[in-house]
């Protein structure tokens, strides 16, 4: 890996301050680079920069490297780093804070694809469906085709159910997504409840068949692929 020198022009203080101002940012300046986060992280060896390095880079404001790193997308949100950090820094939440910034900046790391598929499945169904996840992700990531025999084997053993379990009432879920898209991290119960009341139950019914249709489409596509 080529290592660029750190020059004044590589440091973006606006970006740094933007991150430090968030609720996870407050403690970032107190990192002592102890490395317990990186040492605990199950996937840090796959990352461009370990959580420790990412924290350091945020301190310096190395915007480009931070936002285009695969680190933020590879993180499994296992929270090991956050639980163990002696300074109470939450690298896990830092990743979550950086993702929308990267998206807003139009920096899409290839590792972001899975996240996109995952969130759209949740948005539509309220629950994760292994089948939908894998099938959709395969379409964005051609190398997944190699996994096909394995997938079929799993299906044969009933480990990859085709049935799609859907949440009955997705109103609260939608509110959560809306807030998420607005970039707000705190979800206030009140707001959701209000939105809940606003909703016309008739509209809800109209929407439902439409979505089921979408899912059917999805299923067909996957069948076709097989």
């Amino acid at each position, binding site marked *: 890996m080529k290592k660029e020198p750190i020059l004044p022009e590589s440091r973006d203080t606006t970006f740094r301050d933007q991150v430090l101002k968030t609720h996870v940012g407050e403690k970032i300046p107190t990192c*002592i*680079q102890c*490395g317990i986060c*990186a*040492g*605990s992280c199950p996937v840090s060896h796959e990352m461009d920069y*370990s959580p420790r390095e990412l924290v350091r880079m945020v301190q310096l404001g190395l915007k480009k490297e931070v936002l285009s790193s695969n680190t933020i997308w590879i993180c499994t949100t296992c929270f090991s780093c956050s639980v163990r950090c002696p300074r109470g820094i939450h690298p896990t939440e830092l990743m979550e804070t950086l993702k929308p910034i990267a998206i807003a900046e139009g920096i899409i790391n290839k590792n972001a694809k899975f996240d996109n598929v995952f969130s759209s499945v949740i948005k539509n169904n309220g629950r994760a469906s292994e089948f939908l996840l894998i099938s959709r992700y395969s379409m964005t990531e051609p190398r997944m085709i190699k996994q096909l025999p394995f997938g079929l084997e799993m299906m044969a053993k009933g480990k990859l159910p085709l049935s799609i379990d859907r949440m009955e009432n997705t109103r609260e879920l939608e509110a959560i997504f809306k807030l998420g898209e607005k970039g707000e991290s705190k979800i206030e119960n009140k707001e959701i409840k209000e939105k809940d009341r606003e909703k016309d139950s008739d509209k809800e019914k109209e929407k439902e068949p439409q979505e089921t249709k979408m899912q059917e489409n999805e299923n067909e596509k996957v069948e076709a692929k097989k």
Partner: protein
Amino acid sequence: MTENESPRIGVYLCRCGGNIGDVVDLQAVADKLKEDKNITVNIQDYLCSSAGQDKIKNDIEKGKIDRVVIGSCSPKLHLETFRGMAKTAGLNPNLLEITNIREQASWVHDRDSKESVNSKVLGLIKGAAARMGSIEPLTPLTKELVDRTLVVGAGIAGITTALELADSHEVILIEKLPYLGGHMIGLSKTFPTLDCSQCILTPKMVAVHNNPRITMFTQTEVADVQGSPGDYSITLKHSPRYVDIKKCINCGACARKCTAGAIFLPFAQAVPQAYMIDMSKCKNCGVCVKVCPRDAINLEAKEETSTISVGAVAIATGFEPIDPSFIEEYNYPSPNILTAIDFEEMLSAKSKTGMRLQKADGTFPNRVAFVLCAGSRDFTGKGRKHCSKVCCIYSQKQAQLVKKMKEDAEAWIFYIDMRSAGRRFEEFYHHTQEKGVNYVRGKVAEIIPKTDGTLMIQYEDTNLGRKGREIFDMVVLCPALIPSKGTKEIADKLGVSLGDDGFIEEKHVKLEPVNTLNQSVFAAGCVLGPKDIHDSVTEGISAAHKVSQFLGKGMILIPPEKPQIFECNGCGECVKACPYNALALDGGKAVLSPLACTGCGICVPACPIKGIEIRNFTRGQLKAQLQGILSEAPGVLVFIDPYAYAAADIAGVNRKQYSSLIRFVSVPSIHILDADVVNAAFEYGATGVMLIEGTTDEKLTSRSDDLYKKLKKDTRKHKKPLRYSHIETAQYEKLTDLLNVFASQAGAKAEKRGRKEKGEKPEEQED
């Protein structure tokens, strides 16, 4: 000053470099103050400098002024300095007061407007001047000191203090364990010179044992403290040893006959040299009693107490390791994961393995890892924030010992920062590197015990940015060093405060490092924070010097602010109320014994005819002060006792910000207050009143709830918020949080009231 002459008050304001001057417009404050013709004002850059003090001195000597109000840093820093100066200038020291406009104003109101801080400062000084106008020139009372010192804890710090003091004073040294030496007797070699711990300590312990001026008690703790500084009556609790130390000649006849293994010598070199019995093992067969040639054993021995009279106390209760089992990922306790203290003990006088380093299976560990900062430097609340200071160096010592015992053994040190500041320490680090010890910069992430008894360590080498795994035979955790159990209890009993790390708070961090806020209590060694033997000894010597200086005065000055009984119908309510038995009825009138009185003021509101006042804190004087404070703008009045006042000062030093509506009124104790004073505060425009108490004296705190409830009831008509809170010196963060919350609540309430008065419909309040 003659009776009718009005007081001439000199107000001196200090810029404190820019510390005050940059925040407060002192000139504007001065201009306003000068409107009162009794007041002259002077501003100085540094009042505490000789130029600053000379100015005040001159003004007093020339007769320009006869009372002084200073606006500067906390009185905790310079009140004694200024009062000393006043005395040499011929002014009664009581006629000089300090208003704290630095720690409790210019340093803590960054968020507020300059105007608001200015009006607060102006109000505070006006209040102080108003009270000063009627202050009485009192003379402190004196009391004879008891020339005897109690040293608590016989580690190296306590031993040093005792030996140094015993040159010229009587000392009682108590130790809770059955032997002297503290942690040092459990050390192997000592860094940075690697001399044997026991070899340098034993002569000192023997000297303690033989010194005729030192009375030594082992298995002894402080049970109760009565009396006051300079004259304490302390009850000691002695746990039974079942063997009389004075009679036992250490022959071991008893142990040879005991079938239960219950009677033993703690370890071969233990001082005192006497056997002891572990009653949990003893079968009470009485064999030992029969075989003892000196009749030293008494199986019926019970816990005993004794009472001693001392003038000063030195606390040297040292440290203990944190229990590392809270660090889940380190899997302590497990076989072959030990603390550094266990490691030391294995190679020390206390060794149970014949001074051999060995694993659980008795073999030598060929690969040893040292895990540093286990529980230290942790700001999450799970561990401790502080650095334990000695582990970086002792772990390298231990690593050297491993290499010395077996040249091809491996020793790895996992560290975050290798802290080796101090004379000879960097050289020690260098030398350890030369010995072939492996250093890894990275905090260990996990220690996983394997089925074969080895241990896997997972870590990141932060210098390379790569994860790694290694297998070891033994893992040594270097735990955070924390104040020993019981430090808080003994500090509370003696009225000494602790820092938020639990160690004893020094009177002044830099300038009075072994004094405490109690003038007759001193401290030395690790009870003041982790440190090495060199520093513990240095502090022991310093503490001895300070104790000796204190005792040398022969007398102790007692603050003269005591109750004055100017009207009494003999009802005896005050006598009943006084928790210190300082009042008695004599010939149908209440009489005070001033030396027993602590000036707590409980008797003041107790008197049904308002016949008692604390001198210089009378209702009239307090009310004049409150009126002055609130004359510029409404604010929140906070009555605060000296212990909580210290917390507010620490908040200031740490620049913890809070609302400038907060105005402290320093009182000897919140118990001098009654509804009379609090109602006056509300009438003068206080938007809220807080009572903040910091004392840990249960005789006072047990009455606080009743006081609060009574005040609440009796001031109800004002419909303004009143709150009581207990804040110990260390809890300065809690204090500022509380102040902020209360200030905004009081503000909101005042606003609501304002709107109501104007006839507007109050806005719906949402929860």
